[in-house]
Every structure is written in structure tokens, then in C-alpha cells.
């Protein structure tokens, strides 16, 4: 990590602030290239699904255009000093929280859930803003909390409140996928901030032990049936291939039939014949698996592994606590997206609407993920910046 780095000036010494060119020189371009590569691969797969369907022919181009816009956003965010991120953390969080309340009161319902707030021609999804805002506010919280108290169990309680409040609001919309994303991103920061192992162990133990009890006593018969079907298809084939298991069974057929090398680009019969619902959004991985095979899927997962590992390394190398937590929270969030999307597509996790970052078609997730990378890049560029430990949250 030799490259140029930016050290925060003492207040009032504006002349020492390095220019944009110095910051651009500090950008880890290999990482940026990897990110762009994944998005281009996604465009290619979207082309494969849509190229002979006139009604959807515009999707790959739209995907590329969105990536272009999101890329610019990422690069702009990368230039923002950590002190600015830190100052904006609380206002961003509060505004997002207010917008979430507004959605609850006045949001419009699309696809059965209340997620959108329409302001004139703009339709915004406040839950997307909240993802990044939560990472920032928790990073800032621990940055300050460590200065004051330095540990103990109680220090994590305000953090948990900051996380659970928006999570509850989003859960009510209802948007289960986003709720989980928030809990995962927030949970990772709390874990990294040193939540006591005994607490974690107790939590896991309670979860593992109560599962059979819940299964036997708390669930209705039909709910038990769903769990059975789900567990059954993990090991074998779903006996309910026409009902709830349809989508997942079709996804498994598409993936499995791809084999080691796949059927070849544009040649996936399952993908081309529209067997899989949502195949250009949440289930896009089935197309990669079918057409490019085990090699293709492993390649994508390895690329993501390198990107996220690099991100975690950036977090560890940052001198300020704020930067460490912010970068690791952002990385954790993207990692969660991937684990849940892949887990869902291969039938190891229940179907919750979580897209594959940068590959699935969809504008909001693209912007959120690229903004998260913008934050990670900023942490790298400004890793030597000192952040004040004074002030309110």
C-alpha cells in the first residue's frame, strides 16, 4: 500500500489540502477495475437473457448506463474526506429515519409493499439511503464511544437501538430483504467493535436450541410444511415442484445442468426458455451457472472474494476508528448481499428478495452498492486522516 495518501490538515491550513489529482493517484485502480469487470459481466448475462426478446431488449443498455452513473457517484464519494463523512453521519441517519416514517405514513404501494416516497416526478426508496446512513452513524458512534468508555457491554446498547429502530420500520413496510441487510451491516460493526464473545455464544446457543422448540410448538401446520419442503430440497429434490418449490427447483435444474463448463454463452435452454421467474433480477446467477458452468460461477465468487477481502484490508489499514468501522460495515453489507443471494439461488436459504450486486438488473441496489464502494475507496485514500473524537454523535 505504497501509494499517495492524504493526511488531514489541521484546521485552518487549507493550503496543505491536496488536489483531486493527488487523490486520484491514491485510488487503488486494480480494485476499481475488478468492480467494473463484475458489472460488465452482469451486462453480458443480461444480454444473453434478453437479446431475442424485443420487449426487454433495452435492459442491458439500461444496466450499463446505470452502472456508468453509479460509477461516477462512487468516484465522487471516494474524494470526500473522512471528516466530512463523519460529520454527515448523524444528519444522514436522521433524515433517512424521517423519510422512513414518511413512507410509513404517505408512501405509495408498489408490488404489495410500501417502500416508495413520491415527491413530484421522483420516486425514492428511503430504505436504500438508510443502509449507508446506518453504517456511517454506527461507525461514528463507536469512534466516539471508544474514546470515552473503551469497552463494556453497555456501550453496545445505543448502537443496537440505532440499528433496530430503522430495521423495525422497514420490517413493517414489509421489506424482509432490506431488514436483513440492515441487521447484517449493523451487526458486523457491533461485532467488530468487540461485542463480548460470551454474548455472541449465548445468542447462537439460544437460537440453535430454540429452533426445534419453535418448530414443534410455535408454528402452524402449513408453516411447518414450508420448513419441511425447504429442508427437503437442500439435500434432494422438492416434492412440491409445482408449489412453493417451483422457482427453487427450476433454478437448481438450470444451475445443475450447466455442469463444469456450462452450455455456452447464449445457449442455456432453461434460461432462454423462461423457466425461471425473476431471472434478470434476483435469479441472474442461474443464467451464469447454466451458460458458463461451475467455472463461471466460481470465477464470479472469486472476483467478489478478492474485492471484499481487499475492502476488509483497507478497513484494517485505516488509522481512524471511524474509517475502520465505516469501511468494514460497507464491505459487510455487500458480502451479506452476495451470501444471501447465492444462498437463495442454490436453495440453501429461503427466497428473500436480495439481488446479486452489480449483476442483477435494478437501479437502487446498484447505486447503494457503488456508494458503499465509494465509502471504502474514501477510507483508503484518507486512511491517515485524523478524525476528531469530540462532539455529539
Amino acid at each position: 500500500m505504497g501509494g499517495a495518501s492524504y493526511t488531514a490538515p489541521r484546521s485552518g491550513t487549507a493550503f496543505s489540502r491536496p488536489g483531486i489529482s493527488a487523490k486520484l493517484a491514491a485510488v487503488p485502480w486494480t480494485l476499481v477495475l475488478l468492480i467494473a469487470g463484475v458489472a460488465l459481466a452482469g451486462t453480458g448475462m443480461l444480454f444473453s437473457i434478453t437479446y431475442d426478446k424485443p420487449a426487454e431488449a433495452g435492459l442491458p443498455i439500461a444496466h450499463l448506463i446505470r452502472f456508468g452513473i453509479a460509477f461516477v457517484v462512487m468516484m465522487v464519494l471516494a474524494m470526500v474526506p473522512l471528516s466530512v463523512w463523519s460529520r454527515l453521519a448523524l444528519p444522514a441517519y436522521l433524515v433517512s429515519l424521517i423519510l422512513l416514517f414518511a413512507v410509513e405514513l404517505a408512501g405509495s404501494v408498489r408490488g404489495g409493499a410500501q417502500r416508495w416516497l413520491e415527491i413530484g416526478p421522483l420516486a425514492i426508496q428511503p430504505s436504500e439511503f438508510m443502509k449507508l446512513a446506518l453504517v456511517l452513524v454506527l461507525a461514528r458512534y463507536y469512534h466516539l464511544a471508544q474514546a470515552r468508555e473503551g469497552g463494556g457491554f453497555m456501550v453496545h446498547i445505543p448502537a443496537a437501538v440505532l440499528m433496530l429502530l430503522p430495521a423495525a420500520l422497514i420490517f413493517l413496510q414489509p421489506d424482509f430483504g432490506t431488514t436483513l441487510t440492515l441487521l447484517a451491516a449493523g451487526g458486523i460493526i457491533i461485532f467488530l467493535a468487540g461485542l463480548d464473545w460470551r454474548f455472541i455464544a449465548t445468542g447462537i446457543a439460544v437460537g440453535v436450541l430454540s429452533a426445534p422448540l419453535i418448530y414443534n410448538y410455535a408454528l402452524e401446520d402449513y408453516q411447518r410444511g414450508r420448513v419441511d419442503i425447504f429442508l427437503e430440497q437442500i439435500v434432494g429434490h422438492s416434492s412440491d415442484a409445482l408449489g412453493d418449490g417451483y422457482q427453487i427447483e427450476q433454478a437448481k435444474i438450470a444451475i445443475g445442468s450447466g455442469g463444469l463448463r456450462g452450455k455456452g454463452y447464449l445457449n442455456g435452454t432453461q434460461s432462454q426458455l423462461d423457466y425461471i421467474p425473476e431471472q434478470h433480477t434476483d435469479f441472474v446467477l442461474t443464467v451464469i451457472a447454466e451458460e458458463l458452468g461451475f467455472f463461471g460461477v466460481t470465477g464470479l465468487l472469486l472476483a467478489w472474494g478478492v474485492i471484499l477481502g481487499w475492502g476488509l484490508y483497507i478497513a484494517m489499514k485505516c488509522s481512524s476508528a471511524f474509517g475502520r468501522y465505516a469501511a468494514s460495515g460497507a464491505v459487510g453489507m455487500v458480502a451479506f448481499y452476495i451470501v444471501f443471494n447465492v444462498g437463495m439461488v442454490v436453495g440453501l436459504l429461503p427466497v428473500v428478495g436480495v439481488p446479486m450486486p452489480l449483476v442483477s438488473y435494478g437501479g437502487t441496489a446498484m447505486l447503494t452498492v457503488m456508494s458503499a464502494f465509494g465509502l471504502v475507496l474514501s477510507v483508503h485514500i484518507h486512511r491517515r486522516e485524523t478524525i476528531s473524537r469530540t462532539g455529539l454523535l
Partner: protein
Amino acid sequence: MARKTSKNFFKSARPAKQMLDPEFQFTRRALVAGGTAGALWLGLIGRFYQLQILNGDEYRRFAEENRIRLDLAPPQRGQILDRFGRPLASHRSAGRISIIREQAGDVESVLQSISKLIDLPEERQQRILRDAMRQASFLPTLVARELTYEDFARMKLHAAQLPGVEVEMGLTRSYPRGRDFAHVLGYVAKASQRDLTRLTDGMTASEATQASRLYRHPDMRTGRSGIEYVCDSWLTGRPGQKRVVTNAAGRIIEQLDSADLAPQAGQDVVITIDAELQRAVIERFGEESGAAVVMDVETGAILALVSTPAFDPNDFVNGISQADYDVLRGNDRSPLYHKAFDGMYPPGSTFKMVVATAALEAGVIDPRERVYCSGRYRFGNRTWACWKHGGHGSMDMRNAIKNSCDTYFYEVSQRMGIDKLAETARKFGFGNTWNIGLTGGAHGVVPDDAWKRETRGEPWYEGETLNVGIGQGYLSVTPLQLALMCARIARGGGVITPNLIHSGPQIDPGEDTQQPLEPEFIQRMQDGMFAVTGEWGGTARRSGDLGLGGVFMAGKTGTAQVRHITQAERNRGVISNDNLARHLRDHALFVGYAPHDAPKYAVAVVVEHGGGGSAVAAPVARDILAEAIRRDSRREPTVHQTASTGGTGQGAL
């Protein structure tokens, strides 16, 4: 989320008590988190290894042999029924052949084989081939529709030997009463790109994809105008899915039924029109072009809404050819135009009740006061003529309506001025349109000073008031507005909301400018209108008796000038209509209600370029009112839900 190894658990339980360097602690925990994620990554890759390498052969067999696919099942469109449950828009099944490029392989030779079984000209084959190449290879392309029974049977027999060819029964929208309801029902057509943009507005990307896939189905249609358009979502219903087992090429081997995915048929719409009365009205018009509106004076229900000539909406369902469309467009009697709802006409003398009511409301004349008609009326330095060249002599209000004396109305409108006249016209509902469930709808023009300044940038000239006073000039109205005016006079002045949909989606009627009118004044209008048809010398005396044994109508004739009459012509006197080209002849109008002493029905008739209201329009109106009374068209609607549209009336939209 992350499962920790027991090793980590024991190691780190102890040091948590003592203070750690936060940076060191972070690095340690980050490594744990990274390690956990790495383990998850390996697990996921392992799952792919299991599915793709270990079980790959099995899944490949699944993919190749036997596949289950979800196909869209379009919902059956709801029917449109008249007030007595007669179907006006329903559906019929028709045989249809389609071809799926991907399964057919050599589309050209398959089409060749089909042409040996049914009539399929070479150029048609070329067009199908072009259509097939233009869309996705797995989507069906239409080869032929509306098959005769013999063709259908023959194709069905040979379908097995024709790869990629599907022979099936499809549902086509049909309008059993053809032209009678062209403008009321509108028509459906295959969704165009513009329709799709409108229909998918506000949907998420995947919903929109689903919807456009649905609308590509050969059975799917969308409303383009009239009730079919306005009530589209009510009529459409909800699509379902059918699960089909297909072979390697995608051909359907078996269809699996499941009730929870069945499409939900659209709901029926019942309209207030009596289809038989509508038919009788159209027949009465014969070759004439024009419009008629029959209204129930108590409920405002529209019992007949006729615009003739009309087009046949059945021609539009499968797309009308450009040549046929040009013929419709070129017809000088404008069959595409909804004259009863969109047509704007000068009301002529049918407007005189409005002028008289306005004069009474303004208090500018006593109904007993007499105005002398010499056949000419001077105002300023110009002269206006009464239609009766020799003059009517001295006229009170009742006689002025009975004889349709223009001079009387020049005088009263000049006394009250345009703004008062316009105000009363708006109270009657002129200048307004109602959202009765149809597309279009003209407002007409109720001119006044403000209107003229706004549209022409000029002030109002008093002389122009005189033209409006006899229903000419800038004034224009729709037949629906005239029928409403007449119904309100028949009812004694109360407000009536015209309505066309008896049961169907809630429709916001829109803004209404109507206001109650003074019953005492309206009584005088009734009196005058009965004098027109019931007294010797009335302008429609010959049409007063409906021929039902003592049932009379009350009404008012009107003759609306179409052409501008120059001052020179005015001085020369009236030219007979017979000597003019058709398009220059006057429109004949009539408004009336019956029975005159206990009104049930109101009617407005416009016969385009028909000549005089008395000679042409009044007999038509009389026959329409007689028919309505004979048929008892306004009796309570009796609608039986038909079995063909199960799932109606569930209230879900």
C-alpha cells in the same frame, strides 16, 4: 449469521475482560469475520460443486427430458350487457393456428405443408415468416385465425406431424350488435407499444415485463375507446398461470391444472341502455346521419345513445386494414365520430326555453307582456329577420315558444344581455361535459363577454347576443346536453346527473355546473312546449300525438343554420333548403318529452343537414318516444349474471 468455531470462542472469552488496544482488537475481529466469510464462500462454492459436478448429469437429464414451465393464462374479459342483460360485448371461440419458430426449425417448409391443408397464399406466408423472425424464437406467431370448422378439424388432425405448430381454440371479443353500439362500447385491439407504456405506468420493472408478456398473448386485448377503454381494468380481470410440462424443444406435452393459479375472469359492466330501443332509433334514422339521446327523466339514465352512421367494432378487434379505415375516414357522414357525445351543433330554436327561462330569471320581461313581430327586428344599424317573413304579430312568451318567434327572443335577449343568458345556460348544464364512462365528450360553447375576450381577444358586441338568443352564433351544444335540458324541463327544474353505467366501476362524474331552476318558470316552459305539439298552429302540431291512444309529447323544434348567411342573402329572404347542396343544408333538431302530463322520457334528436326541425326531426322524436313508452324501456333493469363469466361481482378490481 456467522457461525463461530468453538476454538475461537474459548480463546477470546478470557481476554475480553482486560482492556485491549482497540486497533488490535479490530484487526483480530476483522480477521475472524473475514475467515467466517471465507468459509461461507467455500460452502457456497461447494454447493455449486454438488449441484453442477456431482449431480450435474441428473439435472441435465431433467433439463432435457421433462420440464415444467409456467405459462401465462390470460383472463377472460368481462361482458358488457344492456339494462336487461342482453350481451353487447362478449366473446366467441374461433380456431387459430400459430407457429413457434424455435420448435418448427425450418419455418418456411412447415408453412408450405400448412398451405396444402388450408388456404394460405404465398404473400401471407412471407409475412408470417417476417413476423416470426422479428420476435423471440420461443414466442408463437399467428398463422391463421377464424378458421372454419372444417379447416380447424383438418389442422387438428395433422398438427402432430407439423413441428412447432399449435392449433387451438381462442376467444375473440365480439360485438353481437355490431354498429348499434360502436360509439358507446368503443372497441378492443391488440396492445400497441403506446398501450403498453400506458398500461405498465407505475409498475416495477419485473411487473412491467410480466404485463407486456401477458399482452402479447394472442387472446389478450385492451380497450381503445368507449366503455372498453374507461372500464378496462374492471373488464380485464387478473391473469393466472398454467403449469405445463414440455419436452426438450419446449412443446407442451401436458397441462397441469391447479385452481389457485387459475385466471380470474373480468367483471361484467351493465349499462343503462335498452338495446332494442337503441336498435329502433337507428332503424328510424335510416339513411340519415345524426344523433339521438333518450333519457329517463327521473334517474338521468341514458336509455339510447345513438350516433349514425357508425362503424362495426368487430372490424377493429383483429386490427382493421388501412384501406377499410380510410373508407371510414373518408365518409362525409363521419361514421367514426360520436355525434351524440362529441358532436357540437348550434341548438337553433330548441334553445329558446333556455333564453325564456333566463329572461324570467333576469326579470326583464313579464310572461304576459307582448312583443310585436313584423318579421324584422332592428338593432343598431342592422336588421335581423324572423323566420316567418310576414311576421307573427303580437306575441306573449307562450305564443313565442309555440310559434318559435325569433323577434320575441331577439328582444328579450337584447334586454338581458349575454352574461345573464350564459349564466342560465350553464345552470341547465350547457358548456359542461360529464364523465359518463365514455372517452371524449365535448363541452360545447356557452359564449359570454369573458369567453370572447379570452378566445378572440375582442369584446362582446351586443348584436351577437341576438344570434345567441335564437340558438345561433358562437353557441354550440351537444345532443346529450339537449336531452338533459329537456329532461330537466320535464322534471320541473331539478338537477339530473346523466349516467350510462348501471353496474361497473365507480366513475367520478366530474364537475357539474347544473343548478336547480325555479319550478314556476319551468312550468311555463312545459306549457309552451306542449303548445308547440298540442295546439293548432304549434310548429310541431302534426307530431304531437304518439298514436298510443291519447299519449302526447311536448317538445320544441329547431333548425340550425350551418352556413354563414350574408347580409345580402338576408335581405333577399330565406333560400329553400332544397336548392342547396347537402352539406350546406340546415340541421334539423327536436327536443321533446312524453307523456306530456306525466313525463317519463326525454329525447333530443339531431338530423344532420335534414332541413327543418318541424318536418324532419319532430316525427323521428315522436316515433322514438312512442317506442320507448311501448317498450317500457325505463323499467327496472333485470340483469342475470351469465354463467360464462364466473368470478364476477367479487368486488376485486
